[in-house]
């Protein structure tokens, strides 16, 4: 009986620790750095005109090098950065090892990739620029964004029926 009580107390304590942790997940202080990186990113999106529907059209029509240059440079810098992180076993600011989950192939990357390509040509925006377009005052994109949330929901709903 006493034993049971003790186990209950211990498990309650664990529960409250878990609760504290989960509220912390949403704290502004803990996430401020990610908000700031996002702000920085939003500024780049606008200033490099990546949020422009016309820049995406120029890319798909091969009339401008701009977007190929942006994405290409980003990939080169990213590859070098990840190489350096792995090679010198660089840790996070809190001292943890840096882990990057490998991606596994499934046919979704082909079907979903093509479908996203169609949507990209229409909206002139991948998900990041959607947020940036709204921020820069093109308010009708709120509808595009809500529609994208609905598309995401629809994928979750149909997931098991789709070929992967």
């Amino acid at each position, binding site marked *: 009986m006493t034993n049971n009580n003790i186990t209950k107390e211990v498990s309650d304590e664990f529960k409250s620790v878990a609760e504290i942790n989960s509220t912390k997940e949403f704290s502004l202080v803990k996430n401020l750095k990610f908000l700031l990186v996002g702000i920085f990113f939003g500024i780049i999106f606008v200033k490099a005109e990546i949020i422009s529907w016309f820049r995406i059209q120029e890319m798909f029509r091969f*009339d401008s090098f701009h977007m190929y240059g942006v994405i290409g440079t980003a990939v080169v810098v990213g590859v070098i950065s990840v190489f350096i992180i792995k090679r010198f076993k660089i840790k996070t600011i809190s001292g943890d090892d840096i882990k990057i989950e490998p991606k596994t192939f499934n046919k979704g990357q*082909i079907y979903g990739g093509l479908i996203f390509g169609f949507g990209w040509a229409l909206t*002139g925006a991948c998900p990041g620029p959607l947020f940036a377009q709204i921020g820069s005052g093109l308010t009708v994109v709120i509808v595009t964004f809500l*529609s994208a*949330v609905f598309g995401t*929901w629809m994928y979750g709903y149909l997931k098991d029926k789709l070929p992967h």
Partner: protein
Amino acid sequence: MLEFIKQPWAWYVAGALIGLTVPTLLILGNKTFGISSSLRHICAACFPSNISYFKYNWKKEAWNLFFVAGVLIGAMIASTFLKDPNAFVVAEKTKAVLQQNNVKDFSHIAPTDIFSWESILTLRGFIFIVLGGFLVGFGTRYAGGCTSGHSIMGLSNLQLPSLIATICFMTGGIFFTWFVLPLILNF
């Protein structure tokens, strides 16, 4: 200095800064760069509807929602305080083709004759604004990522699935732009 920042940024400046987001997020907290996941977290938070794909602890991924909120705020800041005073330039060839296909406005970040509240109720506007958004949300989740998660983060980590996804994004976009858009633009 401010005048310099106000000009449109060159591709190599923007590209390098975007590339640096990859190590920044990793070092700040082991986060892998990816934006379309935020749409999944929004579904999980607001309409999980008992769908297994949306049953996970989305609060653990809250950083991603703060990140996209930042993107929105950053865009507000840039378009308010760092606005380029010069007119927006569109490549001549693209402009000519679009003009032939009934696009009239070239002075904004998107043609406002398509992307405006008034045009949602036209067939053309509905396809671009509503259907387009749906395909972006559905396609990126089906593919397991978007330009950021696959094309930048995935390729940075030399992932073959991400290369396949990127090739499909581009193929889908190029096909649609050349063969389907001219029809829809004339609706």
